[in-house]
């Protein structure tokens, strides 16, 4: 009897999207598709070296235009989604973009454009044939995909895309040192990805879904114990990807080995994806797991904030030192993760945006310094102030921006984070943040005085002119200093007029804390089950 009744009243929930998708909705997916298609095309035409650079630069410019439009649309209308293949979420794979996703993707595209311009100074034909442009675009596709996807398994796929392309980029040139760096980088990143994959299995087993919006709904009723275990696994996996303490050793061991432009690309894009994934999974999807892990996150944040600049202080290799600055920034974002208030999350999201631009620019300047001095040892670099005052200005501005001194962009996120800490009476984090700025200034100005302030050679010969310096060629100036200056101008501009950034970050933080708009944009509603029940009755 009962089964018959069920048969009569059984109403299957809708599985397909029946509304037409307008061309404007494609803004969500186009950045990734364009980068992927362009990368495939360049891979096909690898052997014809002419025109590759122009084509890649034009594609990245188009992506920037699309992402600006997307960001404006999101700021006006709220998060945007598209679910592939007309299947309704959670069956179809969604791309769901909110303010932090779109703004990070935009910063990533800007960094990529600058790197592509920078590399014009010294790229060899052999490297074009090797597939440099194809790999850069593939990496941009992976990074944008990771920032924009609304599906956890899809996030894993984009991680893999990034890993493949970064592997190709880090060994380009094939020096022994690079292979050494690539093995450390590759092994630890593979391990992190495996942990992530294991966590995905647990999530699917526990909640039966991998759609982010759907998880945000289901996780509220999931048992606390398994959820906390999943949260811890994700914290480990993404912490490794982001190079947070104590799993940060791979970063300073590998990021200084490839071409400086590739270092800039890695420093600007890759660790930020790990940080973003932490914010997305622990704040939006599983807030209860984050709460459970809060003391641990606080410890990790404090340790990362303080140990990273100390590491930088002890370095004599310029790009290794920058690697430690990068890790310090990860600590600042972890501090935001430990204080998920409006201010804390707004601070963390501006910090990521700032760090993408600043770290990339710092690596690019470091590349120019290495090119001038012909060494990567800061003790032997003295005297560049005389040779190029422009570079000393760029370097000092970037150091101050990293440390969080006004009037640069780095000041505002630090301020928001410290305010958040004071608001919560989280004095440990506040002290750590201030100490981090202090130590970063010391470490950075130490580098600056070694490289720029000292007139000449090392030690007692500091008044003797450093005759190892080679002046930059005209090409280096045009393609080296000019693109880097674009980034520095952006950092100063947003530092002086931070209103638009801070407003956007407030929206971003609100969407992270209260993901209703994010969930609704995918077409899932919080009360779907009740609606279905009514229909079937």
């Amino acid at each position: 009897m009962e089964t018959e009744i069920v048969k009569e009243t059984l109403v299957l929930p809708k599985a397909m999207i029946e509304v037409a998708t307008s061309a404007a909705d494609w803004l969500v997916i186009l950045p990734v598709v364009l980068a992927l298609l362009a990368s495939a095309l360049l891979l096909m035409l690898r052997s014809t070296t002419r025109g590759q650079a122009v084509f890649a630069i034009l594609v990245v410019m188009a992506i920037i235009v699309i992402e600006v439009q997307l960001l404006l649309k999101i700021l006006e209308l709220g998060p945007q989604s598209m679910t592939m293949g007309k299947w309704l979420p959670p069956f179809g794979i969604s791309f769901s973009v909110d303010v932090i996703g779109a703004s990070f993707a935009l910063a990533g595209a800007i960094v990529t454009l600058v790197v592509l311009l920078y590399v014009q100074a010294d790229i060899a034909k052999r490297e074009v044939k090797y597939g440099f442009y194809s790999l850069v675009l593939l990496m941009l596709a992976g990074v944008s995909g990771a920032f924009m996807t609304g599906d956890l398994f899809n996030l894993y796929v984009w991680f893999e895309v990034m890993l493949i392309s970064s592997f190709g980029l880090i060994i380009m040139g094939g020096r022994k040192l690079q292979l050494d760096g690539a093995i450390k980088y590759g092994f630890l990143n593979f391990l992190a990805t495996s942990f992530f994959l294991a966590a995905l299995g647990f999530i699917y087993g526990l909640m039966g879904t991998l759609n982010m919006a759907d998880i945000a709904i289901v996780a509220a009723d999931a048992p606390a114990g398994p959820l906390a275990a999943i949260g811890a696994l994700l914290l480990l996996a993404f912490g490794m990807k982001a190079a947070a303490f104590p799993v940060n050793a791979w970063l300073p061991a590998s990021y200084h080995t490839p071409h400086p432009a590739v270092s800039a690309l890695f420093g600007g894009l890759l660790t930020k994806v790990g940080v973003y994934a932490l914010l997305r999974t622990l704040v939006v999807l599983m807030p209860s797991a984050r709460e459970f892990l809060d003391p641990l996150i606080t410890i990790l944040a404090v340790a990362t904030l303080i140990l990273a600049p100390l590491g930088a202080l002890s370095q004599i290799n310029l790009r290794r030192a920058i690697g430690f600055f990068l890790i310090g920034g990860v600590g600042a974002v972890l501090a935001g993760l430990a204080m998920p208030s409006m201010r804390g999350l707004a601070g963390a999201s501006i910090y990521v945006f700032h760090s993408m631009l600043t770290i990339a620019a710092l690596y690019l300047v470091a590349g120019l310094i290495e090119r001038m001095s012909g060494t990567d040892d800061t003790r032997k670099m003295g005297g560049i102030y005389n040779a190029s005052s422009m570079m000393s200005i760029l370097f000092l501005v970037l150091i101050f921006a990293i440390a969080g001194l006004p009037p640069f962009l780095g000041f505002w996120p630090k301020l928001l984070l410290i305010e958040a800490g004071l608001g919560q009476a989280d004095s440990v984090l506040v002290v750590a943040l201030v100490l981090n700025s202090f130590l970063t200034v010391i470490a950075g100005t130490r580098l600056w005085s070694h490289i720029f302030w000292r007139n000449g050679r090392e030690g007692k010969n500091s008044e003797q002119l450093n005759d190892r310096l080679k002046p930059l060629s005209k090409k280096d100036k045009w393609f080296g200093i000019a693109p880097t200056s674009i980034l520095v101008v952006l950092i100063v501009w947003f530092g002086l007029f931070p209103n638009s950034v801070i407003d956007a970050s407030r929206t971003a933080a609100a969407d992270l804390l209260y993901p209703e708009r994010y969930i609704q944009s995918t077409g899932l509603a919080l009360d779907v089950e009740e609606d279905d029940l009514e229909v079937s009755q």
Partner: protein
Amino acid sequence: MNTIIFRTIAPFLVAIMVVFSVFVLLRGHNEPGGGFIGGLIAASAIAIYGIAAGVSEVRKALKIDPLAIAGFGLFIAGLAGLLSLGAEAPFLTGLWTYFEIGNAKVALSSVLIFDIGVYLVVLGTISAIALALEENEEGE
């Protein structure tokens, strides 16, 4: 490995495997098979030919760099997804058309184009890896 029996049989084996890989690709929509497994079969055919005849011989026979084949595959797979832009549907939505040749009803879809793309990506990457490994062995 490089016996006369193997060298004689290899070309026939390779031809059968390539034809079979296309068959597996085409039947893959509703039955076991598809682009991925088809591509693997084709790539193993190429690897076998490499063992039998030498890598340079294979490269000469392929004419195109295997990675370029993979790039082309990725490109047409992406284009197949873009087709749905014209149909007011989300990215990667399957589009179908039917027409008749004689008495047979033939279904053509963007899914098939995507699957052919997958076939070429797998064929290209796996055979690039296989050829690189075989080249190393020959060098030693």
